[in-house]
């Protein structure tokens, strides 16, 4: 087998193995199935064209996700209908404590003693809706880490940010997600009000 054949075999195998994750991420970026399919196909073409820039084969996954993300930014983002980046993104370096201070006391009490039954009964679609309503940077970071299984370092490479930014986004994004789920629970009458001792009323 020539070196080119070996490279092509490696590339094809890795693309096949990453296909579901690439499509899932493309869906989150582009928002529709047809656009997501175009985005994946374009990214695969660009990745093969740039294969010489892959310095370590073990880094294939973040490398190809990064290409997908860049493809989206350069071509699709102008037409996307995602909400604007949240002001929270601009304040990533601020501590989680500041964010927690913005939360209603009732939420903090509930979060300290959440009803497991609520999470067991919550539909997956409701959880995904809550994720999809997060600001872009948090939504994408949580999806890359918690759904697609990337490490913080890999997610940082994909999004072109420092690993510390991923840590910050995870803390803030997951706290916002908890708050959104709490509000859903309240709206559905599923979240009991807890007293200060953590006892459900």
């Amino acid at each position, binding site marked *: 087998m020539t070196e080119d054949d070996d490279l*092509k075999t490696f*590339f*094809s195998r890795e*693309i*096949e193995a990453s*296909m*579901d994750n*690439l*499509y*899932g991420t493309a*869906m989150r970026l582009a928002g529709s*199935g047809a656009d997501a*399919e175009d985005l*994946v*196909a374009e990214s*695969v*073409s660009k990745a*093969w064209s740039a294969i010489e820039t892959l310095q370590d084969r073990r880094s294939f996954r973040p490398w190809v996700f990064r290409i997908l993300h860049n493809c989206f930014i350069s071509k699709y983002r102008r037409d996307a209908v995602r909400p604007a980046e949240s002001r929270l993104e601009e304040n990533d370096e601020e*501590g*989680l*404590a500041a964010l*927690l201070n913005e939360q209603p006391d009732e939420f903090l009490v509930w*979060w*300290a*003693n*959440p009803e*497991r039954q609520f*999470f*067991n009964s*919550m539909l*997956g*679609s409701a*959880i*995904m809706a809550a*994720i999809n309503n997060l600001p872009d940077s948090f939504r994408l970071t*949580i*999806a890359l*880490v*918690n*759904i697609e*299984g990337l*490490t*913080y370092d890999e997610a940082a490479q994909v999004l072109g940010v420092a690993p510390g930014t991923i*840590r910050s986004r*995870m*803390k803030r994004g*997951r706290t916002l*997600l908890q708050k959104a*789920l709490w509000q859903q629970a309240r709206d559905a009458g599923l979240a009991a009000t807890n007293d200060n001792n*953590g006892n459900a009323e």
Partner: protein
Amino acid sequence: MNSDKSSHEHDDIGCLEAIEAFYTYLDGELSDPQAIADFEHHMSHCRSCFSRAEVERLLNRRMRETGTSKAPDELRSRVRRLLDEF
């Protein structure tokens, strides 16, 4: 664990510090053995943080179960055709 601490000694990191480490721990990104030991020690005696961690683990599982997409067969075929052309 640091060599200057016995296996029974842990910093009492408190809930705020535990919350700061919450996701790095649950996502397997907390690498310092002492920080892991201190976090787990806090979990062992703090009902609130333990309860939060359990719910976060449950939420992680639900996200993976429901958020994972399957690429359509048409896309797989399209990409295979592309790969054949390379």
